[in-house]
Structures are given as C-alpha cells and as structure tokens.
C-alpha cells in the first residue's frame, strides 16, 4: 500500500508540465562516473593523450560525491546538440514499470517492490521517478530490516546554454534486532536530500577551453542508534573551474580548482551543535605524446576543515566509554591537508617497451578533541618495467616495484611525536612466455617480494619482515578442441620473521613444492572427460626451534587430490555432470634428529575426503529449465597423539529447482524471471536453519 501511495504521488509530480528539457537521466547519474573512472584508468595506463575534456577530470577532488566528470558532460552536451530537433512533440513517451519479487537464501528472505516511471520529453529530455520498498527477515537471527526510498530526477539537457539537473531523494530504513539476551535494539535513519547542479562545458577563450560547474543541495537526516539521536541537517554549496590549454599538438596543460562549503546543525545524543565543512582542491597537470614517448605529470593539493559532534575518542581512535570523568560527546574539529605528485611515462621502440611510474603522497591529518591528535604521513612509490616481444607468441617481461611509506602520530597534548611507523616493500617479477613447438607453449614466472615493518624508536614490538619467493613452470598443449594437457611445477617459499625478541619465537620458513598435471578430453560431441591431479608438500621450519624456550618443532604437510569430471550432453535439452573429488592429507611433526642430521617425523593426522557430485539440467520449454544436483561426502580423519582417534563423518545435500523467463504480451509485456531452488542437507555441521531452505530470486514486472 505504501508503495502504491508513493508511486501515485510521483506520477502526479511527473504529470506536471515540465518547462525545460533534459537528457537521459541514467546518463547523468551513472555514465559520467563510469566515464570518469575509465578515463582515470586510461591516464594511469598511459593511454592516448587526453583531450581537453579528459584533462578536465583533474579538477575534482576524488572523494567529493557531487563532482561529475566534465569530459562526460561535454560528451553529453555534444550528443544532445546533435540530436536536437525543434519539431519534436513535448511529451514523446511515458513508461511505467511496476515490479516486485522475492529473494530467498540461507541467511534471509527479502520481499520487495519497485515502481519506476520515465517521461521522455522533446530534445531527449527525460524525467524519471522511482519508489521502492523492501522487507528482510533473517533466518538465523531475530532481525528484520525495512527499507523505503523514492527518487525524482529532472535534467534540463540542452534547452539552455548550460546543463542543469535537479534531484530529490528520500531513504528510510529501520533495522530491528533482538540479541541473544532478549534485548531489543532499533537503528533508524530517515534521509531527505534535494540538489541542483549546473554545468557549463566548452567555454572557449582564445587558446584555452574552460568548464564551470556549480552545485547546491540541502540534506536532512534523522537517525536513532541504540536509543541515541544522530540527526543532522545542512546546506551544501560547491563550485569549480577546469581549464585546458593545448600548448602543442603533442602537449596539453590542464588545471582545475574546486571548493565546497557545508553548513548546518548536528545532534548526537542530547547534544546539539553547528556543523560545517570547508573543502578545497587544486590540480595541475600536463599530458604529452610525442614520437615514441607518452605520459603525464600531475600535481594535486586538497584540504578540508570539518566541525561536527563526535564521541570522545582515545589515542587509538576508539570511543572512550570507560575512562572516568571524560566528556562523552565533544565538538570535533578535523583538518586534513594533502599533496600528491605523480609522473608516468612509457617508451616503446619496436618490440621493446619501457615504462615507469613515480608518485609521492604526503600530508597531515589532525583532530582537536580526539585523543588521536595529529598524524603526518608520506608515501613514495616507484615501479618500472621492461618488456621484449621477440615473436607473436613469445615475450619476456621484467618489472620492479618499490614502496616506502610512513606515518607519525603526535597524540593530543603530547609534547613529542610517537615515532614513524615505516613500511617498505620491494617486488621483482619476471615472466617468460615461449612457444616450444606446434601446439605447445611454456610459461615461466618468478617473483620475489620483501615487506618490512619498522617502528621508529621502538614504540611497539611489531617489527617484522616477510620475504616471499615464488616460481612456476607450466607446459601446455592444445590440440584445438580434441585434447588439452597441462603440467605445472611450482615452488614457493615464505619467510615470516618478527624482529623483536618478544615476537620472534614463531619465526618460520615455509617451503612448498607442487606438481599438478591435468587434461581435458572431449571424447565425443555428447561426452567430455576431465581430470586434474595435484601432489603437494609443505615443510615448515621454525627458525629458533633449537632453543629450549621455543616449543615449536618443524613439521610437514602432504596432500594429494584427484578431481574427475564427466559431462554428458544427451540431447539439446538434457545435460548431466558427474564428478568425483578425492583429497588425502597427512600432517607430521619432527620428533628427533640423529647424529647424521637425519630427521624423524611422527604423523599426527591422516584425513581422506571423498565427494561424489551429480548435477542435471533439463530445458523443458523455451522459458523453463528444470535443474537439480546432489552431493555425498565421506570424511574420515585419523588423529595420532597420546590417544589415537578416528572420526567418520558423512554429509550431503540435494536441491531441486527451476529457472524461468516467461513474458506475456508483446506491446506491454508482463515478465516473470528468476530461479528457485529447494535445498535439503544433512551432516553434523548442518544447522537447523539450513537443513531445508529455499534459495530463490524471482521477479514479476510489467511495462506499460
């Protein structure tokens, strides 16, 4: 009923005359962000030299939710202009799609409904409204979650010399739980937000191109958490300018500035206080592509000052509820200042490629009331790679990475800083792909990485090193669908070393050797056969096991697996899969070493797990597929210690279900889609809630 009332209200809003045109709302909401992400990745990977629009992405601070990529807006505007037709009718279409469904799984069952309405106006303008409702019931907990939301969006598109969009959102949530002691708790939130965004891309002034954008919004939030109010209401204004200058055909300069100001009032518990945020961002970058070189250089400075109510926090940043005499709720002032520089470059000459990336991030972050106090941080990063492709299938790549970062904390009221917590990382990678002979290739990989944690002035005992070395050799043959075979040899060594005496007793070196052959054989068009084997052994050597104060002794773990899978396609409708997994493992601990250095081990545990799976699917009709699967597991474990024991566990599961995708009507179709499965399980580890349950995701929708 609630959904219906909300939906009718939104329809009335939609029915009102709309004076301005808009573009596709979905473009406005999601596409700019996606495009911005893609451009960012492109820049990071040194793609084509960005256009002025792409360079505009330099403007916005990455953590600002109201920012849109100007390049995406530019594309939107161009697209809108091309499609502008003066003779179009004002209201071109009005679509309504009510839908509802059920989503069931082992943890919870969700019932939901949604009503989505879209009015397409002249010149690609669009107004959309959605209303949603959901109800979650948890199966293992005494918990329910109710959600209600509504959204109306209107975008003026190309009717004006600028782009304007208006949004109204409402989100309501109530989360009720009863814990194991029978205590009821409720978390509520009711958030309303209205915003208006103006964009003016492509302002050309001489050699320069500018884009201007202005955002304004109001947000009102009412909340309750463990009986305490968490309310806030604020107004947000923001604006920015992005400029690009094509210095040469191969070089573009780009700058951007962004400023945001929030002001309002917040309430926490019984306290009420003004809240505010001031945020600035300034960027400068240059992009180049000339001959064999391409790359970019980028500098960004961001800072903010926030004033808000918060719980009193101790030096670790945790809410301090136990220190006597401490004020529980405080007026917090948080300041952050950060500068980042990065330079990426790539050079390619024929078959040789060289690339590097260098970056520095530094800044300060401080709290006036929190015991955390101030933090200073720095991070330097360098990566370099060299690749050589000496034939179409053969290549070799070397890469090296270096990371050095630290943070230093001066807790509130302290006279001196704590000391730097330093982390250093170095990595080396080597990849070699070599075509050996017809249909057979070799792949060799080697990597080594060292990570070090260092506490300056020994303010903690957590100094440690981790050295990880991995190499693998794989030979693969592929007889074009008739037979595939694969052989993998792998060696991995991990050294976990704590430096300080209080933590070094468990220092160890793990060596793992692995051999894994496998093949896939499509015997006929209706049956295929696949097997994979694996034999692995891991030795763990404790570095200080020879000392009397260390009780750990060296050990090894062996395992072997055999996976077999047979697939039958009996006809176009019926498919069957039978598979068997066999897993055996042995754990042993060293008991003694004789005078010749020979080591003797005692087997502590033997375990054999065997699982038989059977699955089938039958396409009963074009819109209905019947499915089912079952497995049975036998798990036998022998433990050998002071007393020997054997545990024999059997478990299994069977499920039957269907996948449906059925539509009725062509012009205004009613659609039922989704899957439903009924599970039955047994075994010692099966809880009451998953002995029998439904896993379903069904949606009924109608378009008109």
């Amino acid at each position: 009923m609630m959904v219906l009332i909300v939906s009718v209200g939104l329809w009335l809003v939609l029915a009102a005359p709309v004076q301005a045109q808009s573009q596709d709302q979905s473009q406005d909401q999601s596409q700019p962000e996606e495009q911005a992400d893609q451009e960012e990745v492109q820049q990071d990977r040194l793609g084509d030299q960005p256009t002025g629009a792409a360079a505009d992405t330099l403007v916005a601070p990455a953590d600002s939710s109201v920012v849109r990529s100007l390049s995406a807006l530019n594309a939107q505007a161009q697209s809108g202009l091309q499609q502008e037709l003066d003779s179009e009718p004002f209201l071109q279409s009005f679509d309504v799609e009510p839908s509802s469904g059920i989503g069931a799984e082992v943890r919870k069952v969700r019932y939901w409904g949604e009503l989505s309405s879209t009015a397409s106006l002249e010149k690609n303008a669009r107004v959309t409204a959605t209303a949603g409702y959901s109800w979650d019931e948890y199966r293992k907990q005494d918990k329910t979650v109710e959600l209600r939301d509504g959204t109306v969006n209107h975008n003026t598109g190309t009717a004006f010399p600028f782009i304007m969009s208006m949004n109204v959102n409402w989100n309501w949530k109530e989360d009720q739980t009863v814990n194991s002691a029978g205590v009821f708790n409720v978390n509520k939130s009711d958030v309303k937000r209205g915003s208006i965004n103006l964009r003016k891309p492509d302002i050309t002034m001489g050699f320069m191109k500018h884009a201007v954008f202005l955002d304004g919004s109001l947000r009102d939030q009412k909340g309750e958490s463990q009986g305490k109010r968490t309310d806030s209401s604020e107004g947000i204004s923001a604006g920015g300018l992005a400029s690009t200058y094509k210095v040469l055909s191969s070089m573009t300069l780009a700058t951007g500035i962004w400023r945001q100001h929030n002001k309002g009032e917040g309430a926490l518990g019984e306290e009420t206080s003004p809240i505010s945020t001031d945020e600035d961002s300034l960027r400068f970058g240059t992009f180049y592509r000339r001959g064999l070189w391409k790359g970019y250089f980028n500098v960004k400075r961001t800072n903010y000052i926030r004033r808000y109510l918060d719980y009193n926090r101790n030096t670790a940043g945790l809410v301090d509820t136990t220190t006597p005499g401490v004020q529980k709720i405080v007026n917090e002032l948080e300041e952050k200042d950060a500068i980042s520089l990065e330079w990426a470059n790539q050079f390619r000459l024929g078959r040789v490629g060289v690339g590097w990336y260098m970056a520095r991030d530094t800044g300060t972050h401080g709290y006036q009331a929190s015991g955390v106090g101030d933090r200073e941080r720095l991070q330097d990063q360098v990566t370099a790679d060299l690749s050589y492709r000496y034939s179409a299938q053969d290549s070799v790549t070397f890469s090296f990475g270096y990371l050095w970062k630290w943070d230093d904390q001066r807790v509130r009221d302290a006279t001196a800083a704590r000391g730097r917590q330093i982390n250093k990382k170095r990595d080396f990678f080597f990849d070699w792909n070599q075509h050996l002979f017809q249909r057979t290739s070799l792949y060799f990989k080697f990597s080594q990485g060292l990570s070090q944690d260092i506490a300056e002035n020994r303010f903690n005992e957590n100094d440690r090193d981790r050295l990880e070395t991995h190499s693998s050799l794989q030979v693969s043959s592929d007889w074009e669908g008739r037979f595939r075979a694969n052989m993998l040899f792998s060696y991995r060594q991990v050294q976990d070393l704590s430096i300080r005496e209080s933590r070094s007793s468990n220092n160890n070196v793990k060596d793992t050797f692995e051999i894994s052959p496998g093949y896939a054989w499509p015997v006929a068009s209706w049956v295929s056969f696949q097997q994979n084997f694996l034999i692995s052994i891991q030795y763990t050597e404790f570095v200080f096991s020879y000392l009397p104060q260390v009780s750990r002794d060296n050990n090894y773990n062996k395992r072997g697996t055999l996976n077999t899978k047979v697939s039958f396609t009996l006809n176009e409708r019926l498919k069957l899969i039978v598979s068997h997994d066999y897993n055996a493992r042995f754990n042993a601990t060293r008991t003694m070493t004789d005078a010749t250095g020979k080591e003797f081990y005692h087997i502590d545990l033997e375990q054999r797990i065997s699982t038989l799976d059977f699955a089938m699917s039958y396409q009963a009709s074009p819109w209905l597929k019947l499915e089912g699967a079952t497995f049975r597991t036998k798990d036998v474990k022998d433990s050998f210690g002071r007393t020997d024991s054997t545990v024999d566990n059997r478990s299994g599961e069977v499920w039957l279900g269907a996948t449906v995708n059925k539509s009725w009507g062509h012009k205004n179709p009613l659609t039922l889609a989704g899957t439903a499965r009924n599970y039955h399980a047994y075994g010692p580890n099966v809880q009451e809630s998953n002995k029998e349950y439904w896993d379903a995701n069904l949606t009924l929708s109608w378009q008109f």
Partner: protein
Amino acid sequence: MVMMAAVGGSLVAACGCLFEPRDSEPPSSGGEVVYLPRGEAINVWTNAEKALNALDFPGWGDAIGGGVAESPSFRYFPDGQTLQDFPNVDWDNWGREAEMAFINNFFNNVTLVQADLTDSTIFFQDPSGGEADWRFIYFLTVTDPNGATTQYRASCEVKLRLRGSFWYIEEWIDEQGEEDPGTGAILPTMGSLRATFVSR
C-alpha cells in the same frame, strides 16, 4: 630462447641478493605464542584468539589465509549497527587485503588486547567434508597506549574451509552487539573496530 633463459636466470639469481630480510632477535623466554596445528578447524579459531591476545600479525594472517595463494577469499560482513555508524567504509569489498590492513593498524596502535572468541557458543559441531559453520559470542577488551579501554561483545557466524592442508576462516559475519556482562549496556561489534583502523 637460450638467451632469454640465460638473462632471466641471471636476474632471478641476482634477485636473491637484492632482497635480504633482517636478522631477528632470539626469542625471550616466556614470550612464545604456541599456536595449534591448523589441520583442525577449531584450532584455527583458537589460533585467531591467540593472535589477538599476542598482537601477532602473522598469526592472524595464518587464520584468515593472508599471503597464501590457495587459501579461500576472506569476507567480512558487518552488522546493521556498524553499517549505520560507518556508512563510508567499503564493506562490500572487505576482503583479505582490507582485513590485513586493519589488523596491522590495529596491532600497531594498541598496547593490550584481551580476547575471548568463544565467550559463549551458540552453535558448534564437528566439521564435515572440509566445511565448518559455527556461531559464537566473542568478547574483546582493547587498551590504548594511554591505558583507556574499550570493549566489544557480539554474536557472529564464522565459516571455515579446508583448503589444501589447512583450515582458514573464510567468512566472518557479525550479527549484533551483545550485552556487557558488567553493566548490561549493549557493546559494539568488531565492525566498529575494523572501521576505525582500516583507513589509517
């Protein structure tokens, strides 16, 4: 091809000299953390508790499969209270990397943790076929460098999986905060602890 193999082999050999870990101090007597063999599922849950109490980063990593290629992908799911209190944390992608970053920052910034991961047992049975699914109430007391303490007590569901030779915690689902046995107040879950330290 031979030249490529030679060049690669030389660099691989040289790499061993590039990366050399530091020498460790021999362990002091009484400081040993005796972890149980990870061939048994319940030992992994016990080891996680030992790692918390000893502020031992590698011990926590062994429990959740940090740095082990074949281990299952760890996932953490917060309770509703945490979701409401920390909406800006990327809970949907809380995997092993976020968990290791959290535990590293956590251990580096507190001085004492008293953890009991089996303060109360809601459901516990022998695992079968390489899967274990249990529910416990855990209880943590955390002390910061100035001596201030914070407590966490909550019910959780944990799913462990046998991968290769060892068991690992694959999923940690915080359900809801439970009462402080002393005051009766509802305490937060470890979700708020994770949110506080992950972004340092």
